[in-house]
């Protein structure tokens, strides 16, 4: 069971050459290592999403849930996806794994290139094999994603067996190892327990163990702590952070909690009404956001370190529905800075001063009226 150890060093974004003391246990590991080194030589991204659009065909009309979204994830990076309810965060995650419920949903266009492979070109069988192997996921509600009739140990081992082709015994060993890695005490005894015998926080740990069973390159975490208490949330976030550092796993962290994004992510995408409206390094997003929606969100939060408050600033109104959006800035009905141009043509995601910083706003473009 040295595979995970190998990957831990290979996957780390800081390492370009293989250290000499690394023994590569499997053929698979060797192939991965070569591929990783090759990718890094060519400065490839782990994930490139280009012009992704996912729609739901409902009785009321076509819901443009994810609308022409492009972004990248570097090897080993943690990217945040933030935004309010219904803005398309989960549908983006489902699209990346090709798990959009169909009907009524469908990826209508775009490319998703993971580690050089175009996912939308794979057969569903190929996709099934790749899922869980290269991408691990953690969802908001661990109870619905664990099978209540199977033991915890079986569910983790099964994943390792299927994707790593380990023997039953090795897979069980790996499951024990993973369980203790995610902080479950007496892991060997707890292998035989069923999900209902675990608390919410422990079930989420189990989900993380399953997600990591195959050393994925990308961990997709959709609101992984929303259902948990704040002290348990801190445990889980710490776990995700340390595991991603240890294994060099890249993470896409979906959250509506801007505090979590601030603490966990290197880069952040802000979504609004199916679009990415701002993207940038975490410091730039929080200190010099370039889009009235992003700073409206930040302004509307009460602060832990502020005295009993004056009025909070609010964003009036509601997000638009996503059926047949017009060619306008989707935030314009709620934006206090809106001008005529905002209602006549939708702005593009264009570069701003900071590193990899871009925003979708006429007002903050060079020469715009918000400076």
């Amino acid at each position, binding site marked *: 069971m040295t595979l995970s150890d190998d990957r831990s060093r290979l996957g780390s974004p800081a390492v370009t050459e293989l250290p000499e003391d690394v023994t590569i246990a499997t053929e698979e590991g060797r192939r991965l290592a070569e591929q990783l080194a090759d990718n890094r030589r060519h400065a490839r991204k782990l994930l490139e999403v280009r012009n992704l659009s996912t729609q739901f065909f409902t009785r009321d009309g076509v819901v443009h849930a994810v609308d022409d979204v492009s972004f990248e994830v570097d090897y080993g990076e943690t990217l945040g996806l933030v935004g*309010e*309810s219904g803005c398309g965060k989960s549908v983006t995650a489902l699209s990346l794994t090709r798990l959009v419920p169909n009907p009524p949903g469908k990826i209508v266009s775009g490319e998703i290139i993971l580690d050089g492979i175009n996912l939308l070109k794979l057969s569903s069988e190929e996709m099934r094999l790749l899922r869980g192997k290269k991408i691990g996921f953690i969802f908001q509600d661990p109870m619905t994603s664990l099978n209540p009739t199977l033991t915890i140990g079986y569910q983790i081992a099964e994943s390792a067996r299927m994707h790593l082709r380990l023997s039953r015994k090795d897979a069980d060993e790996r499951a024990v190892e993973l369980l203790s890695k995610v902080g479950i005490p007496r892991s060997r005894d707890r292998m035989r327990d069923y999900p209902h015998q675990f*608390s919410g*926080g*422990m079930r989420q740990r189990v989900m993380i163990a399953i997600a990591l069973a195959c050393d994925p390159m990308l961990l997709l975490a959709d609101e992984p702590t929303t259902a948990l*208490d*704040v*002290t*348990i*949330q*801190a*445990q889980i*976030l*710490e776990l995700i952070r340390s595991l991603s550092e240890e294994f060099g796993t890249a993470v896409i962290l979906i959250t*509506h*909690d*801007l*505090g*979590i*994004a*601030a*603490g966990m992510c290197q880069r952040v995408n802000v979504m609004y009404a199916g679009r990415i409206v701002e993207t940038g390094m*975490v*410091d730039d997003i*929080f*200190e*010099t*956001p370039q889009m009235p929606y*992003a*700073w*409206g*969100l*930040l*302004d*509307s*939060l*009460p*602060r*832990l*370190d*502020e*005295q*009993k*408050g*004056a*009025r*909070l*600033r*609010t*964003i*009036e109104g*509601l997000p638009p529905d996503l059926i047949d959006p017009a060619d306008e800035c989707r935030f314009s009905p709620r934006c206090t800075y809106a001008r005529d141009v905002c209602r006549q043509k939708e702005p593009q995601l264009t570069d701003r001063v900071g590193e990899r910083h871009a925003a979708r706003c006429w007002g903050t473009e060079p020469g715009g009226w*918000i*400076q």
Partner: protein
Amino acid sequence: MTSVANTAAAPARDPGALVDVQNLKIHFPILTGVFQTEAGRVRAVDDISFEIRKGETLGLVGESGCGKTTTGRALIRLRNPTAGKVFFDGRDLMSLSRGELRRMRRRMQIIFQDPYGSLNPRMTVGSIVSEPLETHHLSSGHRMDRVRELLALVGLNPNYTNRYPHEFSGGQRQRIGIARALAVEPEFIVCDEPISALDVSIQAQVLNLLVELREQFGLTYLFIAHDLSVVRHISDRVGVMYLGKLVELGPPTAIYESPGHPYTRALLSAVPIPDPKAERKRRRVILTGDVPSPVNPPSGCRFHTRCWLYERLGRPENCRTEDPPLRQIGDDHRAACHYAEDALKSDVGVAHLEDRVRRGTPAAVAARHEAAAQAAVPHEQGAGVAGTGE
């Protein structure tokens, strides 16, 4: 139900208190078998005492299952205590006759967490809001005028009386719940997680509304929430609960800047702050393990199984054997820890204070906000002052 017919209402201890809670216990029996024998008890609320002063907002925080909702419901007698007393305006709630209780109920209302489940989907907004008026025989004759007035008060279109709850967004539904609570002109409102189910930008709208109404009508709130930033924003004092116990009580500056209970410090240290620079500088205490079950709470101090201070002090015996009482540790500041003085000396959980990065808004906009805040200052006066408004 141990509530003896104690007709002579004992006087409240704190003369400024509107609500006075004394040694409140609420236990739920766990019944099993055909004969429904008691196999154990959930000690949901286990001997807590505090007061809510007239015109103040008391925030109540703590993790899921620690007993916040159960406490809140007991304060307005939606739940009967297993032991202990709740006084409202000097009257023991358990001693009231039916008629007296009904009249008393007019003075106390509740706003629920779930804006979806708490409104009857088959009733129009008009009938939802006017229902309490009917129950209490108020504004007969011009009830619909009163309903329209209430809707306008909470920022909804007064012409929406014939609409149904599903036609409204979450934030709007929460406003309907607030209008319903306000209909009978209560003095005291239990707000049980009123904004937890809402989106960030909508949360701020509802929070502002609650603050405005408080100032307009001189309301007293018990504000239950698990979001510590929100509680700081709205509260005059804050209580922290852990596993059925009130472990700390005091003004926000005490609770957030020099907490005397290790659990409060752990909670603060766990809250994510929307500020990447501050986040990078933070040192967290990560509590290990889960919250224990309220059926078999740990002996002595209930927090000792997860307490970082207990570990640092070399596991002192009295933490395991003696339940620490809630005691005075500073000005209007109480904590239930044998070693509160040591907790006060540490900087665990308050490191975020060193670093106040200006968040969000670009500089020019910040200046504009500053100006707007200046202009809005009069709004703040009278906050929390007893007897403003009515």
